[in-house]
Every structure is written in structure tokens, then in C-alpha cells.
């Protein structure tokens, strides 16, 4: 599987976790999207650092080739899946035990 395919699968899995498995429904909440946008700014800055200096490099055959702030657009899917799944678990484990 290419980076593109795995990244799309990761986003789907994260959405399934948030919407159905844990039912945290973060993608319907302003608190999630606001924090995601803040994190996205930092992701673009750090992606630019890592790619413009060639600290991390990508195989051109494994990505569609569109880039944002130096990094493959697939990185946005990677970051979204990572953040949504972690925040969903964080909210899940913060729920009070219901009587």
C-alpha cells in the first residue's frame, strides 16, 4: 500500500473510532475543530522544517505529489488521524462512570 492509501485508511479508522466505537463525536464539536486548527498551524511549521532541510524525505512513487509547506498533502491526513484518535480516547477516558 502507498502512503496515500494508508493515510486515507487511517483517517477512516479515526472517524469510525470517534463516531461509532467510542461515540465521542468530536468531529461535530467546535472544541475539536478549534484545537485542530491551532495544531495544524504548528504542523505546517514543523513540516516545513523537516522537509525543507531534507531531514525527512519521501519516495515520489508513494505519494500523489501535491505538497503543502514542503510536505506531501498525505501528511495532513496522517496528522488528522493521529490527533482525532488521541483526543477521542482522551475524552473517552475522561467520562465519569455513569450510575
Amino acid at each position, binding site marked *: 500500500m502507498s502512503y496515500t492509501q494508508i493515510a486515507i485508511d487511517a483517517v477512516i479508522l479515526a472517524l469510525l473510532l470517534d463516531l461509532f466505537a467510542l461515540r465521542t463525536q468530536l468531529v461535530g*464539536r467546535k472544541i475539536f475543530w478549534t484545537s485542530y486548527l491551532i495544531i495544524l498551524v*504548528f504542523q505546517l511549521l*514543523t513540516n516545513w*522544517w*523537516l522537509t525543507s532541510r531534507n531531514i525527512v524525505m*519521501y519516495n515520489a512513487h508513494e505519494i500523489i505529489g501535491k505538497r503543502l509547506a514542503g510536505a506531501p498533502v498525505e501528511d495532513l491526513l496522517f496528522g488528522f488521524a493521529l490527533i482525532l484518535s*488521541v*483526543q477521542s480516547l*482522551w475524552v473517552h477516558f475522561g467520562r465519569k462512570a455513569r450510575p
Partner: protein
Amino acid sequence: MLKWSYMAMLAFTIAGSFWLEIVLKVRVLLRWKRWLKSILPIALLFVLWDAYAISRGHWYFDTKQIVGIYGPFHIPLEEYLFFVIVPIAAIMSFEAVRGVKKHWLAGDE
């Protein structure tokens, strides 16, 4: 100095988020059981993804710009730290928004 290039990005992420712990008192680090449970399963999956991607050459690292310590699956130490530091920063950001917008529900009230 060059070998700290990737580590500098991790230090930047810590600098950009961990101040929330003190200034906005998001109290994420103190709730260590909760963040450990939230991060470990996801970090494990991303490490497996990283291992596959590195083994297939999807991405690779400039060996002059990493410290040169490797963990399981020949994954650089920086990558392991990434999968802990970035999720903690993400949780701190989430809690910071909650701290400022107290009427926005997160689902765990």
C-alpha cells in the same frame, strides 16, 4: 549540531505547547494515567505504520540530521518521541481551548 535537526522540531513542539500546563493550567501531565491510556494504543499503531513505511521506503531520514539512536523496527529515536510528544501537545491544545471556551462541550462533562 546538525544531528540535532530533528530533535529541534520536537523541542519546538514542547516549547509551543507545554507552557499551557503552567499558564492556562490545563493539568494534562498530572493526569498521566489518562494520557498514557489515550496515547499508547494510538502510538503503537503509528509505530507499526512507521515501521512499514520505513521498510518499504515510503519515507527516509537524513542520517546526518538525527542523533543516530534506533529503536525496534530500525525506527529513529526521534520518531518514537514524536508519537508521544505530539499527542500530548494535541491534548494540551484541546484542554486549552476548553479552558478558554468553557461552554463548549467536549463530551466528557
